[in-house]
């Protein structure tokens, strides 16, 4: 069978014009599919940045919360109530809010302020400069050095600034796995300082971060918190909730999904049609092969091999093109929200295999119907 497949390979790649057209169609299609889904994955990663950066396994929040940036403050008693639930190792408050930093030139820059539990500093970022204990110093803030860092005029340790008319001092510079979706810098401080600096209602806790005693304790905690009228989700559950909100309640997910579907249809039609034409042009040759003694399943194997080979080559080229363009874009726009994930690659591979199978199928139907007698009749 290997020899026959090698013949199929040569028939395909030596027909340079058709092969190039097939590859271009598939590469373009894969590029679009990966690009669209990568943009979506990138944006969703950024939208869930606080969840990932904090690293808490379980989050307690108001039932109406759909994403980190739309937190609904909860009363202080809830923290004690959660701490009292069986299976909770510890629970700490987290403040998440927005403030305005006045820069040296007098302009204002919106920032995200995260207030960590004063006692434990649970959820703190890894520092690349400074000491975390300095966050307790007067007006101490830690700035995240990500793509948005320069928007605060790249502050150094000791740099002072105004946050909502209060003095702030940078005491540490941190790094985080993901930066936020909205392109604004992030400052960390203690919970109590955060609620002092940022105007808030009488309830101040945005989220309660819970460390369960074991993963098995989570359902019990969820049930107990639910009785208190609040919601408990795991880290992944919160990420899924955010993703779901963007997909279902904003146009972003639908548009990207549509573009992905269109890319799939473009790839399907271009490669399907080109491959069909390729087979039609070789129909007499397939007839001759049949007359010589090729069996039906051998012709089927040849055609599906050609379709799969083209599909996988186009898949590889499409990924390469997409990765190259993302890398190029990130050189110019550092917070360009696009990441190629295994999920994207798997989805695109699945779609390419569907395209190849469809192209192969319509070609096979034609080839199996050819009567070698037609080769004789001419």
């Amino acid at each position, binding site marked *: 069978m290997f*020899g026959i497949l090698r013949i199929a390979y040569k*028939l395909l790649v030596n027909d340079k014009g058709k092969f190039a057209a097939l590859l271009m169609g598939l590469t373009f299609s894969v590029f679009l599919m990966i690009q669209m889904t990568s943009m979506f994955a990138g944006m969703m990663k950024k939208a869930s940045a606080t969840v990932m950066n904090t690293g808490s396994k379980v989050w307690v929040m108001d039932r109406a919360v759909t994403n980190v940036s739309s937190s609904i403050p909860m009363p202080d008693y809830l923290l004690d109530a959660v701490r009292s639930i069986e299976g909770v190792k510890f629970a700490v408050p987290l403040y998440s809010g927005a403030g305005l930093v006045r820069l040296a030139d007098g302009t204002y820059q919106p920032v995200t302020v995260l207030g960590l539990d004063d006692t434990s500093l649970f959820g703190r970022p890894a520092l690349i400069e400074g000491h975390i204990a300095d966050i307790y110093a007067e007006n101490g803030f830690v700035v995240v050095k990500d793509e948005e860092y320069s928007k605060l005029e790249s502050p150094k340790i000791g740099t002072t600034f105004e946050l909502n008319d209060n003095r702030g001092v940078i005491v540490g510079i941190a790094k985080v796995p993901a930066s936020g979706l909205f392109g604004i810098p992030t400052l960390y401080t203690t919970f109590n300082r955060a609620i002092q600096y940022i105007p808030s209602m009488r309830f101040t806790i945005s989220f309660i971060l819970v460390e369960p005693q074991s993963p098995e304790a989570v359902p019990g905690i969820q049930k107990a918190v639910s009785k208190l009228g609040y919601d408990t989700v795991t880290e992944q559950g919160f990420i899924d909730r955010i993703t779901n909100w963007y997909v279902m309640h904003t146009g972003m997910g639908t548009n990207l999904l549509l573009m992905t579907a269109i890319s799939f249809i473009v790839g399907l039609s271009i490669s399907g049609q080109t491959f069909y034409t390729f087979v039609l042009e070789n129909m007499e040759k397939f007839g001759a092969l049949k007359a010589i*003694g090729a069996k039906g399943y051998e012709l089927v194997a040849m055609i599906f091999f050609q379709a799969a080979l083209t599909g996988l080559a186009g898949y590889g080229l499409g990924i390469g093109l997409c990765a190259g363009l993302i890398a190029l874009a990130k050189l110019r726009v550092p917070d360009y929200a696009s990441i190629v994930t295994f999920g994207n690659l798997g989805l695109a591979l699945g779609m390419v295999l569907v395209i190849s199978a469809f192209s192969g199928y319509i070609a096979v139907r034609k080839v199996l119907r050819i009567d070698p007698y037609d080769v004789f009749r001419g």
Partner: protein
Amino acid sequence: MNPVAIRADGITKWFGQGEAKTCAVRDVTFEARFKEMLYIVGPSGSGKTTLLSMISGILRPDSGKVHVEDVDIWGLKENALATFRLNKVGFVFQDFHLFPHLTTVENVAIPLLLKRQDWNKSIKEAAKYLDVVGLSARAQLSPTRLSGGEQQRVAIARALASGPDLMIFDEPTASLDGDTGKRIVEFVKSEVLTEHRCIIVVTHDDRIYSFADRILHMEDGRMRDGKGSADA
């Protein structure tokens, strides 16, 4: 007398339906023997190609039987019939049907590869057949770069590669000029026709009739004398 290679008994083939139904081959009976070069001649539409297709295992007759070396070929199942064609029949098509995107030697190797031979071994063996037809120097060229006569010889080498007992030539001179056609048929007669091979040629080119051992005339789907005459 050499043993019988092919025996066709009362084979008939109809095409179309209703009023358009026509009989392409009607109750044809004949035999062909090993080391025999048998011509089937007749005007266009007389049923030559249909007859050729039925005796080579390509087109199923509506009635009658075809035995090749005592095997009732139309009693074979589809895959067995394909294997029969691969092992027993060598086809030289009128338009050659060579693959332009393969080299000459790769074209010749196709039947060997279909027999599941290793690629390198097949190419080596195919090169020998190209040598037989005098084209070893052209082995790495595309068939499109060969003349009509050379392409015909490549097609012959490809047909020979499967080691067939029966070789079928469909209008072998139709795509060639007179001299080239004659040279090709002369070559086939002297080099290809062996003790254990029967060659059947369908043609209406009377310039090559002289090479035939026997000629069967067809007209309106029948053998002209009703059974299969010999008048070389």
